[in-house]
């Protein structure tokens, strides 16, 4: 996994609440057996005017001019700014894969759905929770100032505006440690093999039917 330490990046606004993972990456693209290549189809139904299909070239598809992320001023954005309950719905990890492949490294929202939030950390994508009033101010600033960029520092747990105004955000120490160092969860877990086996031996005595 790609480590996340600090970034300074252009902010793209997605001014909607309850953006679900079906919207982030529609179902037809879930047929892929790969982990990569979902970026061009992120937000497919909002982003393009025609219907997207796996294998179809996205270069000459008609873009929806009303979709914020299509505006020239937000091209190259690495921070997605959005509203509450982002990533609700399906558990598809294709959603963070698509956002990461699109070029986002961090998301700022007042809240996230649990499974999506969890999936982000497995993919070097940092989901930042800031209070709704701060998010509202960031929306206003993003709309008002072309090229509006924020600095995110995971070690310090801060988001900093161009004015140097800084907001602190919370993140689990364990998740932070893994993301900062780009650690592979499975290798870490397998260091606990003895403990897992001891649990199994104990559990087998209590609940043998689980081990038939």
């Amino acid at each position, binding site marked *: 996994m790609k480590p996340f330490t600090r970034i300074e990046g252009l902010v793209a606004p997605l*001014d*909607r*609440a*309850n953006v*679900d993972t*079906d*919207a982030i990456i*529609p*179902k*037809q693209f*879930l*047929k*892929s*057996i*790969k*982990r990569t290549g979902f970026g061009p189809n992120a937000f497919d*139904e909002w982003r393009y005017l025609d*219907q997207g299909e*796996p*294998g179809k070239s996205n270069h000459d598809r008609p873009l929806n001019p009303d979709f914020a992320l299509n505006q020239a001023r937000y091209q190259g954005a690495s921070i997605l700014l959005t*509203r*509450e*309950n982002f990533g*609700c*719905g*399906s*558990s*598809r*990890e294709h959603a*963070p894969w698509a956002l990461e492949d699109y070029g986002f490294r961090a998301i700022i929202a007042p*809240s*996230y*759905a*649990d*499974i999506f939030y*969890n*999936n982000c950390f*497995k*993919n070097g994508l940092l989901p930042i929770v800031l209070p709704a009033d701060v998010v509202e101010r960031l929306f206003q600033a993003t709309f008002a100032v072309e090229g509006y960029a924020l600095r995110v520092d995971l070690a310090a747990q801060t988001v900093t505006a161009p004015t140097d105004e800084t907001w602190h955000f919370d993140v*689990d*120490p*364990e998740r932070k440690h893994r993301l900062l160092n780009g650690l592979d*969860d*499975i290798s870490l*877990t*397998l260091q*606990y093999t003895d*403990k*897992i086996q001891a*649990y*199994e031996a104990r*559990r087998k005595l*209590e*609940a*043998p*039917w*689980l081990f*038939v």
Partner: protein
Amino acid sequence: MQPRTLYDKLWDAHVVQVEADGTALLYIDRQLVHEVTSPQAFEGLKINGRKPWRLNTLLATPDHNVPTTSRVAGNAGIVDPVSRTQVETLDANCADFGITEFKINDPRQGIVHVIGPEQGFTQPGMTLVCGDSHTSTHGAFAALAFGIGTSEVEHVLASQCLWMKKAKAMQVRVDGDLKPGITAKDIALAVIGRIGTAGGTGYAIEFAGSAIRGLTMEGRMTLCNMAIEAGARAGMVAVDERTIDYLRGRPYAPQGALWDQAVAYWRSLVSDADAGFDAVVEFDAAAIQPQVTWGTSPEMVLPIDARVPDPLDAPNLVKQADWERALMYMGLSANTPISEIQVDKVFIGSCTNSRIEDLREAAAVAKGRSIASNIRLALVVPGSGLVKQQAEAEGLDRIFRDAGFEWREPGCSMCLAMNADRLEPGERCASTSNRNFEGRQGQGGRTHLVSPAMAAAAAVFGHFVDIRNIANEVK
């Protein structure tokens, strides 16, 4: 010992290790595997030279991509080559690793969340995961069951464990008697309508109260299935005699002396009388009416006798914008009576409502009637091959066919339209599935979530009707 909730008991029994910040390594008893969220996990295992930790904790089946038309040709019958490759990849991975799989033309194939309980693979006291958010379904058996992403699918395959923070506990109490025609689906939608799609975020929900005790296991599964639509990764119901009766004799259920030992343990899987919850939400069962969603989120739901809301009445500006967008997408005007909304298609199926009891409730409405002339397609998709067999043994297939419904092969089908069953742009559907998100049933498709009886009634009348008005005729 301090009184504990059911969730506490399930959690405590599975903790392998706790880190300083409270993150726990949790042991996972069972994993269900399907074709969509597993290929990258198996690829990861292969790249790193890893193997599944415990093979007999796994059960796989293809469900999302499979066609609901004839299965005679097996995988070759999947017309879309991309879908076919995904199903073939599951077959190959299961063969390579030695994982039990119910393949496309196995009579036991079906939606993972239907076949787990049906096989007795899902049992009380277990931790059970699947790369699918509707894994919450299995909590109906007093299991701790939740959906995970593909990285975690791989993690559980490789280590039989997951790193997790304990959630808060919410009790949703539904007391009293449901009115005739009101189902678990209506309870689920009423709960989501009240607490919202993020109301359960960060919580594990235990459904309790006399109305929940009164539900069949199928009803409890429907309810727990929709916990995720309220934002809760896990929903659960305590063990009672119904739970135990349901599991007795199922293929994967414990046998002989182990059965007795298991049952004795299972009976302890209830919240202690004085256990505290972080949140409690109470409902009067008798006040729950037939529910119909009108928008593009499951929380946009109202009783059948209501009118489509006016965005000007929204509680805040964010919601007002949401409602406006939803009405535009749904092609609805404010203040339209819900009962005047006409539908084009009807879908009875999905992991929410494709079990035998669901099909019986729908068939009771369809019996002796015909679908309305404006209905382009009314699909009935059983949740598994065994549900289909049972329904056919009871003659339900004939009732549906005689009324003009199509009787199909099992799978996820038009709940998410990964196969050929889908809505065309602008088409409106009465659906027994779980999500009315934009594009969920096909790009531009408009979904209204309802119970099986309400869906069948919409097929017969061509628009939504109050099931209570015809419930008297339905025996």
